[in-house]
């Protein structure tokens, strides 16, 4: 094998080499990030006109705990568990939630839910019906004290939830360009080199460390919670 083709094979295998990965992580990526820092993309589903985009929307709310010790995490568990009845009654009254669950994952309290319609209406109605539970939860969350009592800080609380809801990556990968353009104020249709997509994704992940991949799978898309209850004769 010639020197050139040996070198060629070596370069082909570079991305897997430990030293290259180290270089990429600690030098190459930060270099690009410094030159072209991406603004953080907003969380949650993006507004759309289609009915099937407006029902069964995903919320991945990640709330960092203030006290990450075992005691702190136990307190978070208790705060939710002791208020379970209020939470469920509240969700019934909101009327637009398909599923909701609370998850403690590492140092975060997460609320993962599937809901219909506009998320700020969902949160606002939720606050109206179980505001005191939110207050309890916010007292355990990093930066949450300024939002208590939530009923008197509705707008700020909605903005905060929006901030902590995970960015949803577009269903079609090349749409990332358009989202970045919009966020940076560039006009729609700005040309981009297709080959730069991996870099744009890597840099976006610097700004949005966590994300949700697309809108997710739905077995029976396009129907609201109330429609399901109505159609199956459960009353809504």
């Amino acid at each position: 094998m010639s020197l050139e083709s040996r070198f060629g094979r070596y370069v082909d295998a570079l991305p897997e080499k430990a030293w290259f990965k180290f270089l990429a992580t600690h030098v190459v990526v930060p270099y690009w990030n410094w030159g072209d820092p991406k603004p953080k993309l907003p969380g949650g589903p993006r507004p759309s006109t289609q009915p099937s985009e407006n029902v069964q929307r995903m919320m991945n709310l990640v709330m960092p705990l203030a006290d990450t010790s075992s005691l702190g995490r136990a307190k978070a568990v208790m705060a939710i568990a002791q208020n379970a009845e209020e939470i469920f009654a509240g969700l019934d009254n909101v009327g637009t939630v398909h599923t909701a669950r609370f998850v403690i994952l590492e140092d975060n309290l997460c609320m993962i839910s599937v809901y219909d319609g506009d998320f700020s209406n969902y949160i606002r109605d939720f606050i109206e019906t179980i505001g005191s539970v939110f207050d309890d939860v916010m007292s355990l969350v990093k930066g949450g004290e300024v939002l208590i009592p939530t009923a008197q800080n509705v707008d700020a609380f909605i903005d905060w939830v929006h901030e902590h809801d995970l960015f949803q990556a577009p269903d079609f990968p090349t749409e990332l360009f358009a989202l970045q353009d919009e966020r940076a104020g560039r006009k729609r249709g700005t040309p981009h080199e297709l080959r730069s997509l991996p870099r744009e994704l890597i840099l976006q992940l610097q700004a949005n460390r966590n994300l949700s991949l697309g809108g997710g799978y739905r077995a029976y898309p396009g129907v609201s919670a109330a429609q399901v209850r109505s159609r199956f004769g459960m009353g809504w």
Partner: protein
Amino acid sequence: MSQFPDLAELQGNILHGYRRAVVRHLVLEVVDRAAAQRFLAASIAGDSSDVPAITRGTILEKLPDVCFNLGLTYEGLRALGTPATHLASFPTEFVEGMTRRAAKLGDFGASAPESWPSPFDRPERVHVVATLYADKTASLDRATEQVENFAAGSHSAFAVAGVRDGRNLDGNKVIFGYRDSISQPSIRNDDIPDRVRDPLGTVLLGYPTRSEGIVFRVPTPPVLGRNGTFSVFRVLAQDAFGFEDYLDRAADELIADHDVDRLLAPGAEKRIGSDLTQHGALREIVAAQMCGRWRDGTPYAVSPDWPLSGSTELGMEESDGTPPGSRDLRNDFDYGPTSRCPVGSHMRRVNPRGGLIVQRIANHTRRLVRRGMTYGPDFDPAIRDDEERGLLGHFIGANLGAQFEAVMCDWLNLGLHHPDITGSNDPLIGANQPETSWFDLTARDGGAIRLRGFPRFVTTRGGSYTFLPSLPALSYLSKLP
């Protein structure tokens, strides 16, 4: 916080509909800050011959020649020098502005901001929406000149970026022929029973709202935010010919499908309109069900078979002006489980009243005060033209997100509040496309008849989110360093 504000500190158009004949909205750009501030100061003082006086909320025996109120956009507040920390205290939707909220409001396709005419195609230039109300156009012209010409030294205060004129069609009609403005949140009127009265916080920042315990953020500093409110200024073109054409098609389809008896009570044609054929009566039934009121304002829920116009049955004013009977049925009604008013009708979408809705906690929480007037030439169905005509004005509510936007995105479009209509948009003003639109008529036998294929009848032709500051707030703005 006192129970009730000093009315002299509020802008008058929040609590009062002036009921003038003509209106003019001036879309202004602040070109010289100091001059604009002088203008505000003079307008508040109300004693200048060069500047129209701001009309306050005090109830007057006699209205001035020109009533004058103004709203500021986020860009406008910034242009007047509001400090950044206070600008940041305004709600997100106001900061972003109506143009950037287009997807949420259903402003796409022909209604998209990209198609809005000047000045709304350059939202960064829209700083002030100043509204003049008068009985004669000459009065409007005089006041417009004052605004255009006002200068401090050689610096003009404002550039007039756009002008929109409107007028009151007789009987409060809109281009589509319906009587509008019947139901408004009734804040103070002691004649209105409690169940229909709305709390002050519906239209004023800093007061309790219908939602228990909820208080919306009042922008800082308190002098700027308190007793102010938000108003959505919107220009809506109404395709009257398209609407009438669609009614023809719908009536044709209903007759072809042998559905006439399911909709038309025997002999009802004459009561629906004195010279209507069956076809004509069906048209009116479709129009009434799509709106939720017959064209004369009779609520469909109160009288599903025919309108009650000119009749004391409605509890309306007698023709000689004597007050109505004990109940004004035009507005004092509710939607029950057996109501024949279609759930998807326009009225029922924008105000479901006490009817059962999915968002159980939200009844009566999304009310808006509407101060709108007709624009464009009169509509004569016999003379086809391409003129733009429609409705423009203010939708006033203390919180844009909780009231205006919430109605637009989940109720008016999408129909999320009732499973029978979810996935469809308001037949009159929703974001419809003929390929996908649908609306269920209620039949007399309790069933439903689905109409399809109607286009969008109302197109957005511009607008802005504005803040209506109190008089002390305007004074604060006029003195910003």
